[in-house]
């Protein structure tokens, strides 16, 4: 393994062995064969030397910057951040040094130089309301910018639930008319990496795959990489045995909660949420919401904000029943009305009774 990347890592105290291990882990997390790990390592190491680091343009739209925060958060020095040494991040508003016109020039230069080959990462939703006026950068609406930059992109990564599905801005009543990337762009390969925010390693895994194989990894029906979004939280949750035994925490502070029992009753959306939190966890494997005692919000699923309440168990009605008592009353009234009609008919038949005589037995 040669290359300036290896030297950079060595300077940062990351041995070649650690780097290899990291790439192997990444590959196995994505359920790729062992050889892929080596291929990833070689591709990433070679990229800087060959000066052919792929261009990556990162457009932030109607977002909270949480996704950027997440990806740049790493506890083990540089391991996740190192991906940025394997790519040429030509435009990223939070991280780049340039600002104003200089930043815009960098964007257009990157677009021109790498036309058709750059990877476009988008975070944040795209507001359509008021002709897109709700979110503008450099005097242009996000909608216009997205369409423009997407034209020359090889592929698009919709980073975070906002870009993937609309996220929090799209929550009822969606005042800005927020939509997802795939609602706007129809003619480019798009991969969704939902989560609010997404787990950092998922981002790196996808980028590493792209670097190594030049394509996006296998996706599920919602455009998410199957490697990370193939199982529900519920199916990988360490508290599952408690669910199966019916041991639920009823408040956040009761004995059940203290014993680490299942949080289903407290609204955990684990069963309907596909993500890797239960296995990969957060902050370098420190913990994750359920382990910390709070139910899964379902943040990697579309419309999770409108899923009927974070603290309402899935088995409970999403909204209180509105018509039940009125309907019961209407039913009773209908029944009583019928009973009057019936009894009237019966007594009419009775009073109209013609006593049968022998003659009446034959027609």
């Amino acid at each position, binding site marked *: 393994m040669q290359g300036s990347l290896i030297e950079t890592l060595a300077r940062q105290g990351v041995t070649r062995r650690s780097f290899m291990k990291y790439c192997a882990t990444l590959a196995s997390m994505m359920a790729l064969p062992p050889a892929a790990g080596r291929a990833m390592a070689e591709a990433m190491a070679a990229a800087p030397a060959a000066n052919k680091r792929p261009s990556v343009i990162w457009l932030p739209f109607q977002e909270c910057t949480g996704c950027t925060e997440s990806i740049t958060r790493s506890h083990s020095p540089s391991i996740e951040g190192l991906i940025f040494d394997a790519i040429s991040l030509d435009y990223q508003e939070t991280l780049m040094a340039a600002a104003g016109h200089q930043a815009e020039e960098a964007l257009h230069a990157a677009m021109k130089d790498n036309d058709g080959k750059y990877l476009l990462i988008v975070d944040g939703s795209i507001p359509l309301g008021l002709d897109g006026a709700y979110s503008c950068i450099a005097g242009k609406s996000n909608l216009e910018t997205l369409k423009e930059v997407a034209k020359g992109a090889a592929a698009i990564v919709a980073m975070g639930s906002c870009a993937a599905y609309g996220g929090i801005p799209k929550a009822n009543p969606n005042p800005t008319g927020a939509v997802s990337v795939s609602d706007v762009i129809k003619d480019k390969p798009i991969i969704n990496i939902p989560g609010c925010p997404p787990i950092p390693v998922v981002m790196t895994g996808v980028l590493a795959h792209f670097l190594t194989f030049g394509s996006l990894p296998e996706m599920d029906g919602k455009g998410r990489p199957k490697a990370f979004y193939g199982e529900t939280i*519920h199916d990988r949750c360490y508290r599952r045995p408690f669910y199966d035994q019916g041991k639920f925490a009823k408040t956040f502070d009761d004995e059940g909660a203290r014993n680490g029992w299942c949080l289903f009753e407290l609204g955990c959306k684990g069963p309907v949420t596909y993500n890797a939190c239960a296995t990969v966890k957060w902050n370098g494997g420190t913990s994750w919401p359920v382990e910390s005692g709070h139910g899964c919000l379902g943040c990697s699923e579309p419309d999770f904000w409108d899923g009927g309440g974070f603290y309402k168990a*899935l*088995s409970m009605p999403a909204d209180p029943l509105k018509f039940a008592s009125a309907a019961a009353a209407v039913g009773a009234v209908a029944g009583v009305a019928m009973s009057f009609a019936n009894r009237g008919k019966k007594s009419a038949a009775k009073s109209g009774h013609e006593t049968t005589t022998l003659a009446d037995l034959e027609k």
Partner: protein
Amino acid sequence: MNDMQFLTWVRGAGLDIAVSIFLLGVLWRLIEIYSLGRKKDLAAPRQVSGASGWHTIFRRSVPPEGMMKKSPVSYIGGYTFHIGLAIVVFLFAPHILLIKNLTGLSWPGLPSQFIDLAAVVTMAAMVIVLADRINKPVKRYLSTFGDWFTWTLTFLPVLTGWMAVQHLLLPYTTMLALHILSVELLLVFLPFTKLFHAFTVFGSRWYNGTVNGHKGVAV
């Protein structure tokens, strides 16, 4: 509409509509049926202990002498799927939580592996009972569209619920939404089909037991 929106709808508006139609239908039909009343029996009664409407409500669940031999599938299949349904519906933790939310009542449930087994046994019994209805001349002769329809209405919730838990065919969220929808359909049609026997069986058995109990015959 994506799968999460579908699930939220069946948990929200769908449930509201279904429960409303169910309550409306049950009350209407109960009153419509029982308000017809019954003439008082003026014959001198014969008092025999154990012969009454209340006794018959319970006793009629046991096959009379000689009948089990005649149609074991009807009895054993019938018991199995009714008890199985009761276990799955009332002893599965998420269902108990729903009932708790709607009525305030709750009770301990069974571990989900038992429920899984009960669901499979229930479905098997229902399939056998269906096959019997197709094969036996009397059942086939009596059967109308209502019988096939209500079988399907009852079978689908068990099937979709089980499939959701087993992660079969469709992703969980969609399967769960279909399960809830199938239950809602069952609720909507229950008061207007033979499924209403769930309510009228008590009245019927009581009347039968009372009329015969008046004569001192324990049925």
